[in-house]
């Protein structure tokens, strides 16, 4: 398989706390500063120090949205990384390792998991090698993999003597920059660009930047002089500089949604620490002063760390009642605790955003790994019936714009919105188009900051013994959405209660009012699917429009962060299979479900092809495939529940590792080639 685009797949790994992250960040920044597209993702254990963590990065001239299983260049800080990842090195790939690992026994690596041991054992048995690190290195040599020794300690010593700075030997951190410079040397990366990347990482520490640059150049030259032939094998036609413009940014998923919150006017966020959601709140807390246009004074966001997630959602609701756009960010276990208060917000028609960063469940699950297992729970969390919106984003760029949209929906419809993101998005980084935020409109629905006594909604039909006129927070004459004012507004005192309430917000058990209030609230669901723009409900992200003689149409349905791998996949399949039409529909509004819209979109596609007979082969057939990261095929459950759409295949994955381009590609080849062994459920399982 190898590379799918003109790209390099680079992986760096080592024990958690050894600097894998910083090395990857410098590498990514250097490459991005050199003007290439990049996609990276971070994998780590629920552990502070010692367990294996790694960063996967792809570099290309073209935008990249996914990772692949194969590795061109593997940079290792320890023996474990070699054991775990070297099986994925492509022939002619490069392994950078510390010669210290030679002679090590695999049994002595206590953090190695069962599946990695099993895999390496099989490889070594098949190639008749010893079950140890020497055996692995011998096997790699036979596979024509370039073995590059980087004796970190010796190099540091040598470097510190040459630069006459003996304190440097203490700076073990310098190994990070040495390891990445070594890998950049392999593909003749421009050293000036490398220096720029390092300098931008240590922007406020010029002295440290200088030391790191010297160390990087030292390591770069060491590799180029010691292994002069390797770079020739890795010459890529990289167009350095193609992303060096004002329209491209290098963004992480834990930055995009909080940036969207700042733009959306969210000025209050609560959280209780939880992976992978905390980064969202920490970003906001690090940028709590907000610059404003046409305004001399600054805005600000108050971020509060609460005692638990129950408090987090309750505080966010309390804040929302005062008129601020408020939000709480959490992950599955925390969201479970929020279920009761979510219902209170639904009952009292309080706008509220929950950023739900999914991770592997149930219970604590795999706390730092990827899954899309919370879809049905997000839709059903809480007792009783109340309207809510469940909305999901497919990638980093999209999550920025969606964040603004969900704040608008929440206020327009006066409902809580669960904005579903996940660990994969949060811990990925990519070059994408700059967020074009200045044209974004804020829509607050029926929200008034001041209330005039003469407004029509004052009357006393339900309150006949009263000589005082009251504001009706839940005025039934206004329809599903009533006028909303913040606490503290003159002339508009109202009440809220978790009990069923009358138009003023007072407790009632009157059967007639109960029926009307249920209908008022629940009628919002229909209103939501009618009023949210269609392209914001479902999005045709890919469609072959100009193919003729189509023998087979594949319609792919997905939600959330599987989008990147699907798009990269279809770009390739579409050129490989001239007589197959591919169409990909991303479902963004998951509740209320856009049933009619989705059915019509699919029917239109299939029907239109029938009509354009010249385009379609007479035996043409259609296959519908859903792709998601859970066991139950939760999107398919929604399709069955809400539509007449029958999927032919469910591509699923639930081993905690995000779907790679490579495995998705293989699974599609099997489906397209009509491999008889394939059942309806196609389970993916790659990942370390």
């Amino acid at each position, binding site marked *: 398989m190898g590379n799918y685009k003109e790209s390099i797949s680079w992986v760096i790994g080592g024990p958690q706390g050894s600097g894998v992250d910083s090395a990857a960040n410098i590498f990514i920044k250097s490459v991005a500063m050199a003007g290439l597209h990049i996609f990276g993702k971070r994998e780590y254990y629920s552990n502070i120090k010692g367990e294996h963590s790694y960063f996967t990065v792809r570099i290309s001239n073209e935008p990249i949205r996914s990772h692949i299983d194969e590795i061109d260049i593997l940079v290792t800080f320890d023996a474990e990384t070699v054991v775990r990842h070297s099986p994925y090195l492509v022939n002619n790939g490069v392994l950078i390792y510390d010669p210290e690992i030679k002679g090590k026994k695999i049994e002595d690596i206590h953090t190695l998991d069962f599946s990695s041991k099993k895999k390496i054992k099989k490889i070594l048995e098949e190639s008749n090698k010893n079950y140890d690190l020497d055996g692995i290195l011998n096997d790699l040599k036979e596979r024509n993999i370039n073995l590059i020794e980087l004796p970190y300690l010796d190099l540091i010593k040598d470097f510190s003597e040459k630069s006459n700075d003996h304190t440097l030997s203490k700076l073990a951190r310098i190994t990070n920059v040495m390891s990445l410079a070594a890998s950049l040397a392999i593909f003749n990366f421009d050293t000036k660009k490398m220096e720029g990347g390092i300098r931008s990482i240590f922007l406020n520490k010029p002295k440290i930047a200088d030391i790191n640059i010297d160390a990087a150049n030292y390591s770069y030259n060491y590799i180029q002089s010691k292994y002069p032939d390797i770079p020739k094998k890795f010459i890529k036609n990289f167009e350095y500089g193609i992303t060096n413009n004002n329209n491209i940014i290098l963004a992480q998923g834990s930055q995009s949604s909080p940036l969207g919150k700042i733009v959306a006017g969210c000025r209050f966020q609560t959280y209780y620490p939880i992976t992978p959601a905390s980064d969202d709140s920490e970003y906001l807390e690090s940028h709590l002063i907000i610059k404003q246009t046409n305004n001399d004074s600054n805005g600000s966001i108050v971020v509060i760390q609460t005692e638990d997630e129950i408090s987090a959602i309750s505080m966010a609701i309390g804040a929302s009642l005062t008129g*601020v756009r408020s939000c709480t960010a959490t992950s599955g276990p925390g969201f479970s605790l929020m279920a009761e208060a979510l219902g209170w917000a639904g009952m009292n028609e309080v706008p509220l955003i929950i950023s739900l960063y999914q991770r592997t469940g149930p219970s604590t699950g795999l706390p730092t790994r990827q899954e899309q297992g919370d879809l049905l729970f997000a839709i059903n969390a809480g007792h009783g019936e109340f309207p809510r919106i469940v909305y999901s984003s497919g990638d980093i760029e999209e999550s920025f714009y969606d964040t603004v949209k969900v704040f608008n929906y929440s206020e327009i419809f006066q409902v809580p919105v669960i904005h579903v993101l996940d660990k994969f998005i949060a811990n990925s980084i990519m070059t994408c188009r700059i967020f074009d935020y200045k044209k974004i409109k804020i829509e607050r629905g029926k929200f008034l900051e001041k209330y005039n006594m003469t407004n029509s909604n004052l009357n006393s039909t339900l309150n006949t013994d009263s000589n005082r006129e009251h504001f009706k927070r839940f005025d039934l004459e206004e329809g599903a959405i009533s006028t909303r004012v913040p606490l503290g507004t003159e002339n508009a005192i109202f009440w809220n209660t978790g009990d069923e309430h009358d138009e003023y917000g007072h407790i009632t058990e009157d059967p007639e009012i109960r029926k009307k209030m249920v209908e008022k609230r629940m009628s919002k669901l229909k209103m939501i699917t009618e009023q949210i723009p269609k392209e914001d409900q479902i999005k045709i992200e890919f469609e072959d429009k100009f193919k003729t003689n189509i023998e087979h149409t594949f319609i792919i349905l997905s939600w959330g962060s599987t989008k990147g791998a699907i798009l990269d996949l279809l770009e390739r399949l579409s050129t490989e299979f001239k007589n197959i039409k591919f169409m990909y529909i991303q479902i963004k509004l998951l509740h209320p479900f856009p049933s009619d819209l989705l059915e019509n979109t699919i029917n239109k596609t299939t029907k239109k092809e029938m009509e354009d007979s010249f385009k379609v082969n007479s035996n043409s057939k259609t296959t519908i495939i859903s792709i998601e990261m859970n066991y139950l095929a939760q999107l398919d459950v929604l399709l069955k529940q809400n539509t007449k759409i029958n999927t032919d295949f469910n591509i699923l994955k639930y081993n905690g590792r995000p779907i790679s381009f490579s495995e998705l590609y293989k699974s599609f080849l099997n489906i397209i080639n009509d491999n008889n062994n394939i059942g309806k459920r196609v389970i993916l399982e790659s990942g370390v």
Partner: protein
Amino acid sequence: MEYKLSDYKTEVHNDWCPGCGDFGILNSIQMSLSDLKIPPHDVALFSGIGCSGKTPHFIHTYGIHTLHGRVLPFAQGAKLSNPNLKIIAVGGDGDGLGIGSGHFVNAGRRNVNMTYIIYNNGVYGLTKGQAAPTLKLGMKTKSLPQPNMNDSINPISLAIISGFTFIARGYSYDIKHLKDIIKKGILHNGLSYIDVLQPCPTYNDINTKEWYQSYEIDKEDSSKKIPKIYKLDEENYNGFVSDENEIPHKISLAIEKSREWEKRIPIGIFYQNDKAITYEERIENRIENYLSNPPAKQIINDKEGYTIANIDNLLDKLKTV
């Protein structure tokens, strides 16, 4: 505009039991607001669940009847988003010290400028009299099938060690005194806790009005009656912190005093420290214009509806040029 006491009352039918101690608390809150001349719309009264939870519906201010145990987080969220609001939180002892005890302790750590009143009657009234956190170990009210198996919480002590900066106790049938305490609590700059002894006439047949209002005959002087309930300031108790060095001593004093029960029960102010930094002041140290431009008052869009946030500097950091 002048506000009368009646401006703080609603026409909502009150369905508390006849003789319920809650009425005294309700009246005291209304009278406090009226005495302090706080415009009704500037007040937001938050409550938990239970009989006490219905209080907001009887008071003509913004009234938010929240979830069981969660009244403090809801109330703090509102206050921190709009510090101009006068926030009062109310709830029962089961609500605040049982299901909500985690929030009680953590609210103390923050010291948000608001007032929390617990209607303390030792039973879960609305669910028919189960034992609540302040009921003493071994007590068997008529509603309990067996004596209480849990030891009781001392809410005054818990408030002190949690960091509340105004801690007082009132008695629901001494409205004048209770009103006075509530007014002081509202005026206190910081988180005030007011524990109100509130007999539940239906389910708690031990800590009744008669029990609270009983007295003993002085052994030395049989003409002297010693009432069970007494006022701290009448017996030379002073819980006011006038100097920061006094804090440890005043805390010990208050904890010691809060242990008095059964024979004699003190009411009044156990502890007050108005020098502790409030949460609002802590935010102000991070955000200079927090109090003049709090979250709830910030303008977020221009007349055409476009965002006024400018994130150019944040995006510049992400650029690759």
